[in-house]
């Protein structure tokens, strides 16, 4: 069950301190805020280079009201492993969280992430995926969508497909993997609660639409994040110890007829302004394929 708004609102502690350097409509602060509500008292955050390196605030102030350890790009999974090991030895409780962008998880930090996963380290990795290296100015990453324009795919858009991090993590046979979207904070909150209740390696792939990077107006962050789900382009699911479930907020869109047209999602985003009708057809086919795969996984992992 998604965590009710009223329950979240009872937590007075703010994970995000107002007046931080995040852009207007930033999806990361939206995610961090929910993280703060659910795990603010228990979490320590390991943050590799990325947008959150800046969002954390300008010295002497911090913009995140949780312990934050900034670390080099490709090190987060390993640093978190070390913290978790130390806490075990010292006997200290806490949820060691890696809060990473897509570069830090899918690309430069992938080996480290994979290493921590296969060792089943007692850490929770959250990838706040805004589908490009936004902090350095919108360069394509391994998770940038096919055809999305970035400053390193400036004309045709990205020619390769999006790396499916969550499925890659699932095949590391870890106890917890889920996808989430900043459009559904109460679903994300539930997944954080579920993940925090488990020991071992936990992974949440959080879709974080970025206004300047995807080129939509700042007021549309949550709207675009919801459209991604409503068009079926982003599927919410949760895997816990052998059981795979499509999340309630995505469930209706298993039926292609109930999905909103993908054009609605693409049209809002300047990064797709150049796509041709045949590209849209390809994207539709890919969405359907992803759904087939996820449904197979649900059938396979009945728990």
């Amino acid at each position, binding site marked *: 069950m998604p965590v009710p708004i009223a329950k979240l609102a009872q937590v007075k502690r703010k994970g995000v301190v107002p007046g931080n350097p995040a852009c207007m409509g930033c999806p990361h602060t939206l995610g961090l805020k929910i993280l703060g509500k659910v795990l603010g008292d*228990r979490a320590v955050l390991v943050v590799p280079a990325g947008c959150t390196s800046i969002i954390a605030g300008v010295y002497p102030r911090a913009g995140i009201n949780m*312990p*934050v350890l900034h*670390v*080099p790009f490709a090190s987060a999974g*390993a640093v978190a*492993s*070390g913290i978790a090991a130390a806490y075990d030895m010292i006997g200290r409780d806490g949820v060691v969280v890696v809060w990473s962008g897509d570069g830090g998880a899918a690309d430069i930090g992938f080996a480290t992430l994979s290493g921590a996963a*296969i060792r089943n380290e007692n850490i929770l990795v959250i990838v706040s995926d805004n589908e490009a290296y936004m902090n350095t100015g919108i360069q394509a990453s391994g998770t940038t969508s096919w055809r999305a324009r970035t400053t390193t795919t400036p004309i045709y858009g990205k020619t390769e497909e999006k790396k499916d991090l969550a499925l890659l993590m699932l095949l590391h046979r870890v106890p917890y993997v889920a996808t989430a979207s900043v459009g559904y904070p109460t679903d994300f909150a539930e997944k954080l609660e579920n993940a925090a209740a488990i020991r071992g390696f936990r992974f949440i792939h959080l879709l974080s639409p970025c206004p300047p990077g995807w080129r939509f107006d700042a007021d549309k962050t949550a709207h675009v994040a919801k459209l991604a789900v409503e068009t079926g382009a982003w599927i919410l699911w949760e895997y816990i110890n052998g059981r795979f479930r499509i999340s309630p907020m995505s469930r209706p869109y298993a039926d292609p007829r109930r999905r909103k047209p993908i054009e609605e999602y693409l049209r809002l985003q300047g990064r797709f302004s150049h796509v041709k009708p045949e590209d849209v057809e390809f994207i539709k086919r890919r969405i359907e394929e992803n759904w087939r795969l996820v449904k197979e996984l649900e059938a396979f992992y009945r728990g």
Partner: protein
Amino acid sequence: MEPRTVTKVLVGNHAVAEAIRLARVQVVAAYPITPQTVIVERIAEMVESGELKAKYIRVESEHSALAAVYGAAAAGARAFTATSSHGLLYMYEMLWWLAQSHLPLVLALVTRAIGPPWNIHTDHQDLLTVRDAPWIIAMAENVQEAFDLTLQGFKISEDKRVLLPFMVGLDGFVLSHTAEPVSMPTQETVDAWLPPREPEPWVLEPGKPFAVGNVGPDEVTMELRWLLWRAVERARTVIREVDREYEKIAGRSYGGLVERYRLSDAKYVVVTMGAWSGDAKEAVDRLRDEGVPVGLLRIRFVRPFPKEEVLEVAAGSRAILVVDRAVSMGNAGVLGIEISSVVRGRIPVKNVIAGLGGTDTGYEDFEDMIRRFVEEYESGRTDKWLEPEWYMPWFKR
């Protein structure tokens, strides 16, 4: 009171592992690389058998090895890692991040040449790439000293006047795979001398929100560097103090940042570092027998650099010969540069680069180098000492 010790015959790598056991290290993360591998294999065995109560993290790379022990140190644990050559280079980013966070831990570096070509034998190039970062960097001459420095490393590193990472170097194969008798203080003695780590200077814990290393004014970066500089400087005092204290628990001390060998009346000084110092000492003995007034200054600590010690030696002698096992391309041998920067032309300094890639360099070679160094000085041919000499007697172009 007599020190209570146990003596075992151990290869260098096992001696380091024994020091880790006695220091009750809590988190170890490492990636195997020849010739370091045996250290971490032995530690893994200690952890699995329960001889050492610690977490052993089998990371997927050296970058992650140092990243993991960085996390452990930031969380307040006593941590250790070990590597060699390319492993150290792969760690390079983390070497800086860790040290500039002002956190203590120990890293054992089993020195090895950097490729290409692949070469698993010793030289000091890897160790000396770290000299610009705020690490305390030591180099052992023998297996006993590798053990002693590893144990002392925690004491020095965790001292509130230092709180910086500590690197102990030991020559690949020459020490790492060579068995020697090693005298070790008992666990009780070590426990009394080395209490559990205190989580200084800062510690990451849930419920205590702060951000470590936020962007900020440029001046703050410079101020932090200065504070690190001060801590490295203070380490001189701590190293000397720990070296003296160690006498009480282990029955040995080495003389602080350097070892002085037959220096009191020496007019010519040879400077070396690491295992081949033993061969160099033998050459000194032989030349002494012939009446040549030569002595040896062995660099035990590269950082902080033994400036006073070098100056003191320079004040009483005619010329210095630095025999280097690492080179700074386009300038000179690394120790040659270091020594010259302290001596500043007070007396002439000759620099010889030798033994790279583990090239065998015996006492006869040192004898040859020293003999020619003295001759050149006495016949006034020091002008060509501006350039280092590459010692390759076998080499024909």
